[in-house]
């Protein structure tokens, strides 16, 4: 893999374009440990960043990051490139495991702290792919302004906070059935603003 300037279409915060990641996964599925190590190096900062944001506790976050990559190693053959990008697949595995962890330990100190993203230190890497990440972050910030306040808050609580739509409804004083609608509407607007296509 090359460390040359970022090619077009490279997912921010990873060191590899989509097709290269897919290739590394295919090799990992055949038991290629070197390919898996490369896949890890290209994606670990993204995975760990998301997990840290949801779980917050550093030790638990490390455990979950480890679980995620072990699951990826075992199930790499089940990745289907027709269903989506390797990064989306990976981040889905990571998010699901992070959420399972916080729901399993309700007593975690995460619950005692404020959910507000603005007041939390956001995991951010200072060395790798800084330019791509900053660019991408600006694009996401700009796209987020297309959402209503309620859509944005509901989406952030669910995705970064790991709360269920019922919990989100209670936190935002919404009727029980409506938080899931806000989350979906917010994601759809975000998809359109970012021009995300399959």
């Amino acid at each position, binding site marked *: 893999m090359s460390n040359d300037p970022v090619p077009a279409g490279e997912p921010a915060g990873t060191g590899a374009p989509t097709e290269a990641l897919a290739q590394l996964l295919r090799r990992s599925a055949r038991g290629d440990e070197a390919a898996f190590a490369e896949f890890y190096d290209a994606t670990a900062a993204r995975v760990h960043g998301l997990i840290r944001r949801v779980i917050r506790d550093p030790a638990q976050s490390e455990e979950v990051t480890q679980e995620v990559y072990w699951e990826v190693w075992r199930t790499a053959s089940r990745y289907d490139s027709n269903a989506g990008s390797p990064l989306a697949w990976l981040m889905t595995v990571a998010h699901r495991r992070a959420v399972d962890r916080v729901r399993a330990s309700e007593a975690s100190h995460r619950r005692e702290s404020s959910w507000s993203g603005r007041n939390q230190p956001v995991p*951010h890497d200072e060395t790798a792919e800084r330019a791509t990440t900053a660019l991408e972050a600006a694009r996401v910030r700009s796209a987020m302004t297309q959402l209503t306040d309620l859509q944005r808050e509901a989406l952030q609580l669910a995705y970064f906070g790991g709360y269920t739509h019922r919990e989100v409804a209670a936190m935002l004083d919404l009727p029980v059935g409506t938080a899931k609608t806000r989350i979906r509407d917010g994601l759809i607007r975000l998809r359109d603003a970012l021009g995300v296509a399959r």
Partner: protein
Amino acid sequence: MIDIHALSGAYVVDALDDTERSLFEAHLADCPACRDEVAELTETTAVLSSSLVEEPPSHLRDSILAGITTMRPLPPLVPDLAEHRRRRFRWMPSLMVAAAVLTAIAVGTLLIGNAGDPEQPVLTADDVISAEDAERVRVELDGARAVIVRSASVGHAAIITREMPPPPDGMVYQLWLQDPDGSLASAGLMPRERNQTLLLEGDATSAIGAGITVEPEGGSPQPTSEPIIFVALS
């Protein structure tokens, strides 16, 4: 009442509870529009998290890479009829292990349901699943999953199945509710579907358990075999 399509966003960000997730995944199998939407929204969440970047400590890398040397990567999922048949027949005996609870069940009287009462509004499984007091029990074995939901306020129970192998030819899955006195009442026959959401027939208000047996086509007035699934309800 749940508008199932509206769950796509909450599904993508893992904001559904287990029952809703099973329900939506079963729906996904039949709804290409929802599958497309889920795929696009999943890509969107990957972009949403793109500013969250934190390099994990190097000891974690060492530990992860050391770990994989002892783990065998799973083979790809390939459609294979022979494997499918083996799985189908392995599934039933293994579920029976979980069902030892039922060995001492007395034969009792059938409960008469009120399904034919013209005064009663038509109930659906969604009424049970979305009830505030819904009580849920999950069973998971060999990749087959079922969630049994009972709402005392609605007075009924429902079952959601996922990847449930079909019963042997000439046989049918029959649902049962167990009364506090231990007797079993038929709660209906299950259509031959791997993924379904079904309202159990009969009053489940005071049921202490629910189960499934394999019966000859048409069902039986009382179970003629050990249950393949049995769950206790509190």
